[in-house]
């Protein structure tokens, strides 16, 4: 489709196929890239600040592992049959209930979040305990997924594997709306807390001495960030590295003041995911590659460079 065809189709002009592709597939996909990119990046930033760990990302607390497990339960155990990758028009809207797998993935994500935050609430609720709990519980979900996949049928296994690829093609206007509502709620809360996050950069003791109830703020912030991750991963699958790269780019460009780095991270995430999605459709030779694979491919070298530059800094 040419650019003029795209614009015409966007306003309902041109061939029926073009209008359908543009309005039902491309637009929800672009909105999903903007919203999911912003939310994942924002969640990554909040995790990095609250866990006092510059390597923290949406996957640190094992939420994505829990979502993948939930999706596998739906597909393999309950035969959710969510095979829609967004690449094939004939399979678009396939399945009796397209939200079944997402719903189960979401339920397990929330269970995992509550389990980790609950455990840490009982204990000291220190960032170190949180990260270790996240890694441990994430490993349990991964192990359980592997065992389930071992007993799955060929069709179930392939459906489960396809689901785990991050794919913006699954987005619909309904899923975009849900993600947008959660994103804006999170954005407002994080912006209101931006000065408190600035204080947290000095450590828990100093932040407490500045009048902040650090444990409660950390709990609520991580819960809200996790909620967006759960919604996003349940609808779109695993999209790696956006949540770790983009906050670092934003902080590098605009500094660490959260009043600026929060909107800057959201914007950077949207741009990166939009670019990665365009790239995935361009190099896919007719079919879109999973965007999660593209973001990871782009992200891994950046991540290594980041580690090396940090090492140099502290050497």
């Amino acid at each position: 489709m040419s650019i003029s065809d795209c614009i015409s189709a966007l306003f309902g002009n041109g061939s029926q196929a073009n209008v359908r592709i543009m309005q039902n597939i491309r637009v929800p996909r672009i909105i999903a890239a903007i919203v999911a990119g912003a939310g994942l990046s924002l969640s990554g930033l909040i995790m990095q600040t609250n866990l006092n760990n510059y390597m923290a990302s949406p996957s640190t607390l094992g939420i994505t592992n829990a979502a993948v497990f939930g999706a596998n339960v739906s597909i393999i155990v309950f035969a959710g049959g969510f095979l829609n990758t967004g690449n094939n028009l004939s399979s678009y809207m396939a399945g009796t209930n397209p939200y079944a797998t997402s719903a189960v993935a979401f339920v397990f994500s929330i269970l995992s979040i509550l389990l980790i935050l609950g455990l840490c609430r009982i204990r000291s609720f220190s960032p170190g305990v949180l990260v270790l709990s996240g890694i441990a519980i994430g490993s349990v979900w991964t192990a359980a997924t592997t065992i389930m996949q071992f007993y799955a049928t060929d069709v179930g296994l392939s459906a489960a594997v396809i689901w785990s690829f991050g794919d913006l093609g699954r987005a619909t206007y309904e899923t975009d709306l849900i993600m947008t509502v959660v994103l804006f709620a999170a954005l407002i809360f994080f912006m209101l807390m931006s000065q408190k996050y600035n204080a947290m950069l000095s450590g828990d003791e100093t932040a407490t001495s500045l009048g902040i109830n650090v444990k409660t703020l950390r709990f609520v912030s991580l819960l809200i960030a996790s909620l967006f991750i759960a919604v996003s991963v349940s609808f779109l699958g695993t999209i790696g590295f956006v949540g770790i790269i983009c906050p670092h780019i934003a902080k590098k460009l605009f500094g660490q003041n959260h009043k600026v780095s929060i909107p800057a991270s959201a914007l950077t995430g949207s741009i990166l995911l939009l670019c990665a999605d365009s790239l995935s459709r361009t190099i896919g030779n007719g079919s879109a590659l999973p965007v999660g694979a593209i973001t990871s491919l782009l992200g891994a070298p950046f991540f290594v460079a980041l580690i090396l530059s940090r090492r140099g800094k502290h050497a």
Partner: protein
Amino acid sequence: MLEIKDLHFGYDKGKNKVLNGINLTLEEGKIGILLGRNGAGKTTLFKTILGIEKPGSGDILIQSKSILGLSYKERAKQISYVPQLVNFGDLTVYETILTGRIPYFGFSAGKEDHEEVKKVISEMSLEELSEKSTEKLSGGERQKVAIARAIVGKPKLIVFDEPTGNLDLSNERLLIEETKKLSKEYGITILCSLHNLNEAVELGDSFFFMDEGVVKYSGGNELFTEEVIEDIFKVNVKVVNIENKILITGE
């Protein structure tokens, strides 16, 4: 005036006792120095004063009013903290000092908060560093910014946790002068823990020697005798008096 009355605290729900009945009185606008070996309970005492840990029993009073029942915010308006390891993240000096006004503004800084920050920056001669990233500051400059952040909230008490621990000699001198200024010019009461006894003698008005979670000796610089130091630190030192200045050697 700061008063601490029979303060008890233990980690793991009181099982591992660290503070075993702290009693301490520090006059308003004076500098009190906490001294003692590692593990004597100095840092834990600070944590209970700041509200990071809740004491099992006892009371902490500022100007005869208990602070234990206060919210984090209300307590922060009365007490500020200058830690040993000063780390602000990659914020500018101005942004860092502004966080000292959080107890007053909550979500977003108002005109009055910005005016207070500018006033403190001017008083502490930090104008040139104002827009510089705190990551690019020297150890002494960072301590100065930490002090600026502590006083911008207009506290009645500032708690210093071993502030000279990571500083070279020139920055150490600078910090001692700044701290004395806080007490004299701003009338702020200061409670500070130190390891260096000579620094303590130079800086303090009152001294509290801690051992096993209690204040074993409290008073003025007459406490700096070889017997008291040996009892607290288990080391032999020589205390000499040169022109009315106490010097402790052999530490």
